[in-house]
């Protein structure tokens, strides 16, 4: 028990002295949390205020006056960061309104994605992924954040399974009774037909 206490006491000053060089997230300027910190210390003076995500994020560069030559793309999935601040020429995203091409200097946009093919163009090479759905944020400083729930490279898809799935969901739709079942079957059909066109087209 005494050792725990001494470890705790020794831990704090060491952490304050070094700027935590081994942590994976770098602290940004926490000026944005000032109101929260003040309000907290007034009401609960004994405890340190909790940290907020802003202190763990690297700040984004401001909007440049001229259009930059490259687009910086962050493509994240729940279980991996596929592309992290990668500089590319163009990306084509499957938005709900259709395939949308994003170039550097694109107007700031928030778009929802539907199941379809995402292609990343860097120089002469093109990488294609099939994304299930998600969001894309295009910021004014030529940063694009693509957040998808699932994404697979196209060569990992099996044509036969896609056809089977499509047939299965079509039959489910015709035999569906409640609205929920109809909606689920419709979603299945949408995804599988998108997969189909991705593989053929």
């Amino acid at each position, binding site marked *: *028990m005494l*050792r*725990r206490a001494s*470890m705790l006491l020794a*831990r704090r000053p060491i*952490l304050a002295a070094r700027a*935590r060089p*081994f*942590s*994976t*997230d770098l602290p940004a300027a926490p000026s*944005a*949390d000032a*109101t*929260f910190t003040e*309000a*907290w210390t007034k*009401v*609960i003076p004994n*405890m340190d205020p*909790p*940290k*907020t*995500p*802003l202190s*763990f*994020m690297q700040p*984004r560069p401001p909007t440049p006056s001229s259009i930059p030559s490259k687009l910086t793309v*962050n493509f*994240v*999935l*729940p*279980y*991996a*960061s596929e592309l*992290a601040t990668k500089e590319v020429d163009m990306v084509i995203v499957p*938005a*709900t*309104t259709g395939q*949308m091409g994003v170039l550097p200097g694109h*107007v*700031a*946009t*928030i*778009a*929802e994605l539907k199941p379809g093919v995402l292609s990343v163009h860097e120089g002469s090479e093109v990488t294609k992924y099939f994304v299930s759905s*998600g*969001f894309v*944020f295009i*910021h*004014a400083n030529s*940063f694009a*954040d693509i*957040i998808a*729930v699932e994404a697979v490279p196209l060569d990992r898809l099996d044509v036969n399974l896609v056809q089977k799935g499509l047939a299965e969901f079509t039959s489910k739709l015709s035999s569906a009774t409640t609205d929920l079942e109809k909606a689920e079957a419709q979603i299945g059909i949408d995804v599988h037909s998108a997969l189909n066109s991705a593989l053929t087209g």
Partner: protein
Amino acid sequence: MAMAALRREGRRFAPLISPRPITAVRSSPLYPTLEDEGPLGLRHISTQVVRNRMKSVKNIQKITKAMKMVAASKLRAIQTKTENSRGLWQPFTALLGDLPSADVKKNVVVTISSDKGLCGGINSTSVKISKGLHKLNSGPEKETKYVILGEKAKAQLVRDSKKDIELIITELQKNPLNYTQVSVLADEILKNVEYDALRIVFNKFQSVVSFVPTVSTVLSPEVIEREAESGGKLGDLDSYEVEGGETKGEILQNLAEFQFSCTMFNAVLENACSEQGARMSAMDSSSRNAGDMLDRLTLTYNRTRQASITTELIEIISGASALEG
């Protein structure tokens, strides 16, 4: 060695000798020692009590060491997942900013804790922060509700905030954590709880010995619109064009829900990592403590043993010299 053999022989023949009346027990303040009856009426101090304590302390040391190994292996498995999921909440904070001080009427505090104990103080810190947020956001017309994930927070919050608890969810880590499970959970919470702001309280995993209590705020679409109109940090949200959907409001609704499930996923993973790390350090200090205790007990044991041998020798020698002279 010879004494031990004599003692053992004595015990075997004990039933043949008529038992002497048992003398009064002489106990020392720290370790109550009992007096045994030997074969020739010899009295020696028993080391049985100390030996029992040593055995149990050694077992405890083994168990806590094993628990530390188990926690270390679980930590390794879940740490890679957590680090991969860290990119998930950053785009949302980049777009919508982070407004923990937003003034809203209906606050919901989602407290994430562990189901199992023996993990140090992380659950108590989460509960203290949640209660702090409740106090911070109290005022006329404002209300704060709790959604609890995990048994440990439930045990602490049920005691004094029972009427404020909306949902309790336990046994989260029965199956390995994945996004589907967390998104279903997020869906349940969003369906059953009315909210203007959701505050997720969890312990962020900095390193194996450092866990930082963190609160992530997710605002409802109405509050986002309100903050965007009033300018300030979300002021340039209006400059973003919204593609697709019927109205901007619909897209913002989907966005808020997606943001909630993504931040929840990251929060749950970080908390699981912190739990394993805290358990590792708790079990480590516990086994070190048991080792110290074992050392002290061994010294006491040896002293008791030597004292009893000395007593026997003195009695024999004084008996022999009494016979001679």
